[in-house]
């Protein structure tokens, strides 16, 4: 049995997608994230830009690309709020970096691993968000960790459905 190094395995298992997927999926995530809470009200327990960040970071296995994608999506999310731009950007930059870094080490084809990773990275993103808001900006914030757990669970369930769908669009060599 041949043993592959992390770098060679990354090159071997790297996934590529059509440019349209790279462009449309993040935009669709942003649009739905802004539109669905209006329909679902307070039951909108998900963060679609985070799920998309995790997916592409895991698939590409490139921490730089994961960080940049997470940063762009986070900044776009911030631009739609009334808060300073960069809060979500920092959180999702970190999430993208961690997802890609961990993606090098584990088999990301496994659905259970994807589920757990999305769950954990959602919580990491929430913690980073609260850290930035509370300690860097000094804003008071209502920290409802039960809601964050629900949101992480919602992200995981969405990832369970969305990742296989997006996998179908990857370019086969």
């Amino acid at each position, binding site marked *: 049995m041949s043993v592959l190094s992390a770098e060679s395995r990354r090159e071997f298992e790297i996934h590529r997608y059509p440019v349209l997927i790279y462009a449309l999926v993040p*935009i*669709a995530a*942003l*649009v739905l*994230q*802004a*539109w669905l*809470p*209006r*329909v679902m*009200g*307070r039951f909108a327990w998900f963060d679609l830009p985070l799920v998309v960040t995790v997916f592409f970071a895991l698939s590409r296995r490139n*921490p*730089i690309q994961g*960080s*940049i994608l997470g*940063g762009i999506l986070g*900044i*776009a*999310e911030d*631009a*739609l*709020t*009334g*808060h*300073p*731009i*960069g*809060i*979500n*950007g*920092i959180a999702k*930059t*970190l999430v993208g*970096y961690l997802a890609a*870094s961990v993606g090098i080490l584990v088999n990301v084809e496994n659905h259970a691993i994807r589920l757990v990773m999305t769950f954990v990275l959602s919580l990491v993103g929430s913690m980073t*968000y609260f850290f*930035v*808001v509370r300690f*860097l*900006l*000094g*804003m*008071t*914030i*209502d920290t409802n960790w039960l*809601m964050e757990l629900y949101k992480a669970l919602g992200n995981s369930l969405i990832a369970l459905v969305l990742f296989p769908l997006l996998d179908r669009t990857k370019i086969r060599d």
Partner: protein
Amino acid sequence: MESFVVRYRNLLVLLALLVAQILGIAMQVRRSANGQVGSDSGDGRSVRLLRYWANSLVSPPERALHSSGSGVSGLWENYVDLRHVRQQNADLQKTVDRLRLEQAALLEDAKQGQRLQALLHFQEKYIYKTVAAQTIGTSGTDQSRVFYIDKGKNDGIDRDMAVITPDGIVGKIRDVFPHTAQVLAINDQSSGAGVILETTRIRGILRGNAAGQPQVEDVIRDQRIMPGETVLTAGGDEIFPRGMPVGVVQSVANDPERDGFVDVIVKPAAHLDQLDEVLVVTSTQPRFPPDQQRDMAASEASKGSETEQQKASDGMAEKLPGLIVPNVPTDQQPLNDTSNPTPVSKPPVAIHPDRFTPGNATTPTTEDAPATDGSGPRKKPAPKTPASNPNATPPASPQGENR
């Protein structure tokens, strides 16, 4: 060195991205540092550009989704789900008739109130023009209570315009784009509205708290503030017209940062979580509508006739004789004029006069006078003898006796 950069390039890129964003946040906070972090005191040009780009990216699909959703729901509501409509129509007609009667009564009261306000030179802003808009999206996060409407600068929307519903106020326009606008809800932490408690007349500023509930801040503890009291706009913020419903007091909580102050939690009158249609107040005017102005003119006319009446009564008073005329000797005063057909009547003579009878007080003796040195015993005053002469000299003062 090169190997270091190559080896740690991922980490270095991550650090560069994080540091750049932290610096960006610091610059934004510095720009809006007036006590409220992330307030709407004005974004920088680059930040505004980013917001514009994001909005341009997200709003068109949102509008399309909203339109298609409205189309499907409209199809269902207008063609499929039409059962019991006839009965509902009859019920609604009855309600309309009843409301018309109520409205007629309320209109009379309102006109009277406005006339009184006009007489007091009270400047009130009235809603003159509104633009109906539909909500098409949210900020996408629980922490920022802003939402987007499908009307923008091309529809006459501008910053700081009030956004209301028939139930109560909703928020104000924070940012305007060509076809959409961002509304800052009253339960956001960076919002602010001047409000007044209807019964206790306590004023304060309404802001959102960390939990997303609107609350009146910086209120001195007052036992009179009770749950259920209505909260209205105070009109001093130059955004919301005065007297609009805001909500009712839900609870009163001690201010954790300052003793003696409380935060009044308000249950908003508008359903902030389920907003579909809103009204943007695009124009207010400090004048009354034409019909009210006609009423005011009539009121002014009646005020003028009152002035004339007052002038006439003053003239009549000048012609009538007074009781005391200055620069005239006492014996010639109109009061002593015997030719007066209705002379001043004198009091009747008392049958049993005492010391309280006018002109019949007994002169106190030295025994009755209080001792000046305070050493002598005070004697019981002698019983007064009835005076036969009602025109006796008035009593001298005890001090005059002792002198």
